[in-house]
């Protein structure tokens, strides 16, 4: 396997260089990294970082660059600082030699999950994100975190363990299009005319379990129901216009910091 690495890297670099030369940089979505930055970051990574961090970014203990696992870093700004100062005690030199656009490119490649063809997500400041979560964004009106808040929507206390930045960004921009099947809401109408709306917790051929809008755990026999419908739309609004790109980046940073207790 070791013998194949230089060849592989040569191939990757060649492909990326060809891609860079060929493409006209697309207009950059505000607050995002674009394909050219990610591709440039891949080349820089191959030159500056791969020797220590390895081709998959997981060669240093407790660090997995591709999966976004760091001992201290949370935001992109943290990464900028780390690259400038290094971590001499752990053997990482300062990379003051890098221009700021090169630093941005490297972060873009890391935040894309090492997917040179993919998209990277900008990660802002978690403290600002927390303020947005309970303030302007209104997230805390429905979502519960670390024992505080309502039960109406999913509990986000561990969301930073299970979701990647790109997935969180999708959820903020297009909640209905990115809802996972397990978070669907259902509407059940009983034979005596009652309507129960809630989030499905479990289901089998004969029964369904949900948490209703009053936060009650409810189990229903399907034979008692006149109708049972999955609600195709998410009750969460899109934040495409109500938050700026930088504010979304802050919210994403906050969500990524939620890793349970």
């Amino acid at each position, binding site marked *: 396997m070791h013998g194949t690495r230089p060849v592989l890297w040569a191939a990757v670099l060649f492909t990326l260089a060809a891609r860079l030369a060929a493409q006209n940089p697309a207009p950059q979505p505000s607050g995002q990294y674009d394909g050219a930055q990610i591709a440039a970051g891949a080349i820089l990574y191959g030159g500056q970082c791969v020797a220590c961090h390895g081709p998959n970014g997981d060669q240093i203990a407790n660090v997995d660059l591709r999966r976004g696992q760091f001992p201290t870093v949370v935001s992109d700004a943290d990464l900028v600082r780390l690259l400038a100062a290094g971590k001499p005690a752990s053997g990482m030199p300062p990379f003051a030699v890098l221009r700021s656009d090169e630093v941005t490119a490297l972060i873009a490649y890391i935040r894309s999950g090492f997917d040179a063809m993919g998209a990277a997500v900008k990660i802002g400041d978690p403290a600002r994100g927390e303020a947005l979560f309970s303030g302007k964004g209104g997230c805390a009106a429905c979502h519960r975190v670390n024992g505080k808040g309502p039960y109406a929507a999913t509990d986000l206390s561990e969301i930073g363990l299970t*979701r990647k930045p790109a997935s969180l960004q999708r959820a903020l921009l297009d909640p209905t299009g*990115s809802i*996972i*099947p*397990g978070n669907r809401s259902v509407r059940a109408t009983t034979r005596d005319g009652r309507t129960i709306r809630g989030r499905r917790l*479990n*289901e*089998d*051929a004969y029964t369904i379990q949900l948490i209703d809008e009053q936060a009650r755990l409810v189990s229903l026999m399907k034979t008692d129901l006149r109708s049972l419908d999955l609600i195709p739309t998410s009750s969460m609004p899109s934040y495409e216009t109500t938050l700026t790109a930088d504010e979304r980046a802050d919210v994403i940073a906050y969500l990524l910091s939620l890793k349970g207790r």
Partner: protein
Amino acid sequence: MSVWIGLVLVAASYQLNAQVSSDRLLHAADEPQNWLTYSGSYMSQRYSALRQLDASNVKNLELKWIVQNQVFGPWESSPLVVDGTMYLTERPNDVMAIDAKTGRLFWLYRYTNSGRQTVCCGAENRGVAILGDTLFMGTLDAHLVAIDAKNGKLLWNKQVADDKLAYSITVSPLVVKDKVIIGVGGAEYGIRGFVAAYDAKSGREVWRFYTIPGTGEPGIETWSGDAHEHGGGSIWVTGSYDPALNLTYWGVGNPGPDYNPDQRKGDNLYTDSVVALDADTGKLKWHYQFTPNDAYDYDSVQVPVLADLMWKGTLTKAMLFANRNGNFYVLDREHGRFLSGTPFVKVNWMNSFDEGGKPIQTPQPPGTTIYPGNQGGTNWYSPSFSPRTGLFYVSAWENYGSVYRKESTPYQPGRRFNGGGFQVAMPNPDAPPMRRNPINDWTDAVGRGAVIAIDPRTGQSKWKFQMYDVTDGGILTTAGDLLFTGNREGYFHALDARTGAVLWKASLGGAIMSAPVTYSVDGKQYVTVNAGNAFFTFGLRE
């Protein structure tokens, strides 16, 4: 007078403890108090003539006993019941002799595997076969063992294949006359599959049929280069037997490597086929291939169900075969002629058959969803045929697809030989992987389980019983017009075999991974099934 009564009693008790002769196996369906072969009879209909339980009283079923397994893991075994004694295997290769009335053990046999056995999909064993007073079991390290049915002591132990090359045995054997017929698993590791017959007394191999032809043999032209050397073709579900034709029928597994047909250009006989073999010699009489040059892991190890049907005005010796590839087939089991093929779930890998019954394949663009997906429209789950309703019943996965990828894989002895892989087609890139009991809030988004009752004469569904989760449970039907089955949700259901209406159900709290069996002791009918880590036996409330 009393002497006469005594003699009658002696005769009766002798009958109760009589050896299971090959003649009894031939007429297994005529002694429905017993369950003498994997599928209940050589016709493999998993149908019982017992009629004490029916629609009027099935609601009065109650739990009679439970046997908890000693070795954790899904339980795919199907028990035999012989004159009041149940013979049940648990993983990897334990055999239990159980009082079928109380669930108490008479003895427990433990086989020690080599420790280097390699299996793709769990340390499964699907059950024993019986002849005389001897039980026969294939082992994970690819041996065939004979065990004394009275005391669980080993009689002989014969190596069938080399486990260092990842050969294994999970299939329950089929006894025909004086021979024990068994096959090998390992197609995910580049084995060359075979069915073989062993002399029941000595363990001597009598014949062997390779499911992958060798150099110079017919069918070798369906393989490119030396691909046949590691062509796969596992046998992991028990076949059937027609005594009048003296043919034994076996479904053959996938080619190797599983997902890269470019590495084995050609039809790849006899993978994904059913083969009809002379039971005395193992000589191939005919074959029918369901999925030539398979790219989707469509093993054809489903149970070949034999039934005599009126087909277009003629009484026909038919074979009914619901295939993993999503089609339900009717074949002429005497000559192997294709009579019909009809999809029972969504199918897009093919769209029609040519005149000879060969599928016209419709390869989809790379990265798109293939239906049915990797686990198939159905799989090894036992189907059932009721001669009373004339319907064929199959456990199906509906609206379930996979996205496949192929890659070149070199063969290395004993190593995985997959040639790519697959992903369940997800509605959303962040959806979690397929999940089982006890929490299931979404599998309807990637496929649903159903029991489908098919009229073999039309291939069309007569009724359908839909579940929420997918199902791995087999199906049993009875002369009381009951259909018993279970699913991943842990329900054991009794349905009306004529309509699909639910008549009774019990929540057993663990996924049901094998097929129910029914039997009677002292005139009382029982039905037994596994769920999670236990076997549950039900009878009428007294």
